[in-house]
């Protein structure tokens, strides 16, 4: 999204939003799905984006902000192109999640919660993601799981992602 330009949904996003409204008896119930559209469109949820969503949905801006702050997957600041959320809950730690985190930190030279200076990688921690049988694991860009991680496979993944040219 270009700087200084007020955020606005694309026509496709607007159509998707209108379709959502038909699913619920109240407009407010469409808030989380609409915030997901916004995060997909703009990458993260700035104050301006939240004001836009509040205006679009005829909801008090304070309500929208309060809701967003409750949910950990909604970003209030930009994240790297590749977001690595490593599970640090019990079953994953029993199978070596600490080592995986250590490996990523050293390779990317960042701490938990940080983004590399080139904006490519963000390292995050997550609670149990219902993948304990294939621990340790991470979720890439809030989408596919990468499971049964080893020191080798995590470094390979990072190299592969670093090599993608976008």
């Amino acid at each position, binding site marked *: 999204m270009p700087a200084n330009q007020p955020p606005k949904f694309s026509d496709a996003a607007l159509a998707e939003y209108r379709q959502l409204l038909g699913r619920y*008896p109240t407009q407010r119930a469409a808030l*989380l799905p609409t915030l997901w559209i916004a995060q997909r469109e703009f990458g993260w949820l700035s104050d301006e984006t939240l004001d836009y969503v509040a205006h679009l949905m005829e909801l008090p801006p304070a309500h929208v902000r309060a809701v967003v702050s409750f949910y950990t997957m909604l970003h209030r600041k930009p994240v790297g192109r590749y977001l690595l959320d490593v599970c640090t809950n019990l079953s994953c730690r029993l199978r070596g999640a600490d080592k995986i985190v250590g490996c990523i930190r050293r390779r990317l030279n960042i701490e938990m919660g940080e983004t590399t200076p080139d904006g490519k990688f963000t390292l995050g921690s997550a609670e*149990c993601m219902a993948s*304990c049988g294939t621990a340790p694991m991470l979720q890439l860009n809030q989408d596919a799981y990468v499971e049964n991680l080893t020191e080798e496979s995590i470094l390979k993944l990072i190299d592969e992602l670093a090599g993608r040219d976008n």
Partner: protein
Amino acid sequence: MERILTRWLDIPDLRKLDVYVGNGGYKALRKALFDMKPEEIINEVKNSNLRGRGGAAFPTGVKWSFIPKDSKKPVYLCCNADESEPGTFANRYELELDPHGIIEGIAITCRAVGAHIAYTYLRGEFTVQKRILDAAIAEAYASNYLGKNILGSGFDLDVFTHRGAGAYICGEETGLLESLEGKRAYPRNRPPFPAIQGAFGCPTVVNNVETLANVPHIINRGADWYKSIGPEKSPGPKIFCLSGHVNKPGLYELPMGFPLKDLIYDVGGGILDGKALKGVIPGGSSFPIFTAEEAVKVNMDFESVRAAGSLMGTAGVMVMHEDTCMVDALKTIAHFYHHESCGQCTPCREGCGWIEKLVTEIEAGRGKMEDLKVLIDAASNMEGNTICVLADSLSMPVKSFVPKYRDEFEAHIKLGRCPFKDRDGKAGGLSAAAGH
């Protein structure tokens, strides 16, 4: 044993509609629409003794019977696919590999309670699973297993998926309803119960994915057949989620009442590196841990696990061997519940925070002997004093870990460091147990 809930292991591509139908799929829905009255569906499920798989083990048919029969307001079904209890990963595979089994269970349940809209609330991380379920729902609409006048029965049903955004408390049924309504997922005071005032102020049934996946099988084969699997009071096939220090972690469908010892040593291939067992959490991290001696004597059904002093919860079986630092394990658990407490109730918010802080201090070698009593007191004080049972979900682990592994807690305090760590503090606790 015949695989029922995990038939996908025997039927490739079960997730596709034609394969599902080719293997008897949607026959139970036809039966429920054309051969049974709603009341008869409820009675069949009541008689089957099916108990909810979401953690609380509430009898499913009884829950459905609480929905008012003459409701002037719409009735809703919410399928709980928030699956966030640490150690639990059955719903995830059910969504990926048998979405039509869930949709059919949803449709039969809606018919039974008179609901015409069902929402499936998926945890925010389940993007892949949501795409698969959405595709299956679209297939079901296209073949009129959903939508208007289903199969010419006159029954209408819409099914929607709704994605959360990262908060464990959305799995608690009233937190789920608040979240669905576009709010923070603050659990509600009860009464009123969701059956009377649930989603959007209307009568609502909330059921777990696996509970609903059992329903078509019960309708097809009858309550007596269902009750013949496992112990009569908590019968049925059950998916066990085995994780931690076993050679073969994963999902295993077994009859209720299966011995935990055989699950670990036989089905699960035994303990990693042939080490000795130290402890097992039988039902997800919210529930009391069993020592090795206790674990090998327990059968895995709701009654037996309760009688042995824990709860079967979600059947998330977390196995820990001799190298595990139990203080570090409890610290991980305490961190989770503190992080996930919604903060509405002071005892939970402050109790979870305090417990995490105390266990963290002990693990770091900065604890005092009297902290052990304080921990137990803090855990006891938040029990039963809160809107939902998340507070109890930390209290139970604390009150089992501390007395059962007291020597380890004391060793941390006496030594001033974790006994599993090198003297320079490197590679300790759970890292050491993972073999690094």
